């Protein structure tokens, strides 16, 4: 029996708002503790999922923290552009290449899109590395895994058919090859070689898909579309300069017991009774300079400089210098503040049940945001009632072959934006019981129903 198969019997465990993928191995399947220690250091977080080992009487358990991550098999099903897809493949190549260069055998990686994860915020792939003495385990076939991924990616927007064909040929060249290391065995270098020798349309050679800036570049360059295969993009994507930007007010902030929010806009962020401090606590038991919050490499630290003390998460846990994470409670003497990081950077792992509003704003004076941000976020949806399929509206004015003969426009109404549906040449267009005849229009509202040429849709906007 292939031992890796038994390893793949993962269990999903939910504990304290976190999701873990846990698997157990017998005691004799020795965990390689040297590797465990090495893996705990920061550098490896780049590629591998953080994990914890626990020993019980008969088994060793390894739990991988997958909170907030999306399984690659799921993520690949979403609509994405070809360059974004290859960004992911390139990420995987980097992980294998890293393993090859270091002492981590990639035989210990779990090669199955179901157990590979995409970090939505860091925009990268993370894999499970099993720190076991490797001679017993052989990693699943990498080309097979890439093939599986390729099958998952059903909603690719293909922008360069040739490149895609070459990639498929490249994958096919491994078919039927032995899993044992032979002539035709997959190596990360061969994938890198493929990337270097094939040049995706619209991306400069050399700058390559290995660079994270590639998607933006491609967009600015207009990203040539291969007419035979490509799905048409809304034709006025570039016509407006008015862009919707998701605004996150500050990366980090404190809240007091009443829920008042204090943004941490600079580091070091000082706290004390002294009026010049970034956060002033006017209480006699708080020192003039009580504590300082600092940031280093995306991590946050608190340093106590007071006489009455700073406490972390527990009024008896006095600290001098400690790393702090999202949701940690800080007591400056007896005055409690909660620390939050709104950016999901991996340390953001505790849920706060307090509701926050994630505001988004558009710049410019016109009240009408007319272009979706580059992440491909829909501004609105038309949901077909018969099968719940969604037509995603990425920009206004919106026209589509799916709902031919009508256009949805965004215009200012007083100081607000208003959305209008106009019948250009629809045989019938019904808006909440009103018949919109050809050449006339009506103001829409989010949630309204439209019957377009006999088919019923619900229109919703995403604020």
């Amino acid at each position, binding site marked *: 029996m292939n031992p890796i198969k038994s390893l793949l019997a993962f269990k999903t465990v939910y504990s304290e708002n976190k999701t873990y993928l846990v698997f157990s191995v017998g005691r004799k399947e020795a965990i390689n503790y040297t590797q465990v220690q090495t893996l705990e250091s920061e550098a490896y977080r780049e590629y591998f999922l953080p994990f914890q080992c626990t020993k019980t009487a008969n088994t060793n358990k390894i739990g991988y923290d997958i909170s907030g991550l999306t399984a690659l098999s799921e993520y690949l099903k*979403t609509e994405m552009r070809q360059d974004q897809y290859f960004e992911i493949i390139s990420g995987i190549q980097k992980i294998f290449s890293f393993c090859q260069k270091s002492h981590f055998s990639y035989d210990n990686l779990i090669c199955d899109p179901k157990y590979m994860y995409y970090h939505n915020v860091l925009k990268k792939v993370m894999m499970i590395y099993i720190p076991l003495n490797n001679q017993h385990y052989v990693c699943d076939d990498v080309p097979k895994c890439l093939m599986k991924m390729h099958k998952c990616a059903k909603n690719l927007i293909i922008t360069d058919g040739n490149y895609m064909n070459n990639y498929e040929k490249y994958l096919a060249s491994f078919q039927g090859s032995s899993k044992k290391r032979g002539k035709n065995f997959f190596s990360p270098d061969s994938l890198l070689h493929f990337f270097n020798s094939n040049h995706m349309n619209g991306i400069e050679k050399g700058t390559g898909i290995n660079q994270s800036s590639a998607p933006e570049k491609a967009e600015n360059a207009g990203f040539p579309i291969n007419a035979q295969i490509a799905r048409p993009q809304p034709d006025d994507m570039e016509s407006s300069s008015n862009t919707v930007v998701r605004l996150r007010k500050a990366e980090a902030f404190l*809240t007091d017991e009443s829920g008042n929010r204090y*943004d941490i806009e600079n580091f070091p962020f000082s706290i004390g009774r002294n009026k010049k401090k970034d956060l002033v606590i006017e209480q006699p038991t708080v020192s003039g300079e009580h504590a300082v919050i600092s940031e280093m490499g995306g991590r946050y630290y608190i340093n106590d400089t007071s006489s009455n003390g700073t406490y972390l998460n527990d009024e008896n846990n006095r600290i001098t210098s400690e790393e702090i994470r999202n949701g940690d409670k800080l007591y400056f003497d007896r005055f409690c503040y909660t620390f939050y990081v709104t950016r999901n950077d991996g340390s953001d792992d505790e849920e706060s049940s307090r509701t926050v509003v994630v505001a*988004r704003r558009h710049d410019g004076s016109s009240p009408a945001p007319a272009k979706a941000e580059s992440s491909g976020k829909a501004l609105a949806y038309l949901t077909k009632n018969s099968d719940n399929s969604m037509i995603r509206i990425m920009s206004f004015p919106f026209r589509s072959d799916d709902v031919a003969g009508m256009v949805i426009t965004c215009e200012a109404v007083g100081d*607000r934006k208003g959305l209008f549906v106009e019948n250009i040449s629809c045989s019938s267009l019904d808006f909440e019981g009103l018949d919109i005849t050809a050449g006339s229009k009506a103001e829409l509202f989010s949630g309204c*129903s439209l019957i377009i040429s006999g088919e019923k849709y619900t229109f919703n906007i995403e604020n």
Partner: protein
Amino acid sequence: MFEYSYATTEGAVRKVNQDALMIKTARYKGREILFAAVCDGIGGLADGEKASSCVIGSVSDWFENVYPSLLRSGSGALDIRSSLDRRLHSINNDINKESVNGKVMGTTFTSLLIDTYLDTAMIAHVGDTRLYKIYDHTAEVVTMDHSVVGEEIRRGIITEESARFDKRQNQITNCIGAGARDRMYDYMLHKPETECVYLICSDGFRRQITKEEICGIMSPSRADDSEKMKAGLEYLMRLDIERSEEDNITALAVKYSD
């Protein structure tokens, strides 16, 4: 004829209840009308409470003073929707004026207006409070959550199942107040249904329990009068707290029969 009930609590952890709710009934030309709403306030100590009660107060005033004249002037459902929309936007501006200096003060809002004279059930919605329609063997979430998690489900990034354990449950993308400008609220115009129980609830009510559990307790054949509705809502509320819900919990249920 309407049967209705509600349950609300500040919960196990919070000291104040920032949720607010109302249920009002009226009669026009012999036909019954019901207006019910739930708000989940956001903000520090008194602020969230202020925002939610301000919205409830104002829409209640709209129902008592504006709605009758709309009916008398022969307005249809679309005019009534526009009128309520204008009212909600004016409250939004008022709350924004109040919440200066970076203070966050806002509220979600979900309401149900069943007008048997116009034969309309109008739902107005903003934020992550929800309206469910509960049938005997199934329940349906009618409103769309204006939240980061809800948005990602719609975009296909995460699944509904994984969203249950997502730690960003508390991030909402739309509300009344909290500095939000130029937003659109959701409205739905349906026919009043007699074979379902309408349930409006705050996120605290539904986070720890499943749709199936709600359906099991609040189905129209089980919760067929006010008393049973009350008992059902209170049972679910206790279940939330047992499963360590920390937030305020509020829910109301309405059943309409000819």
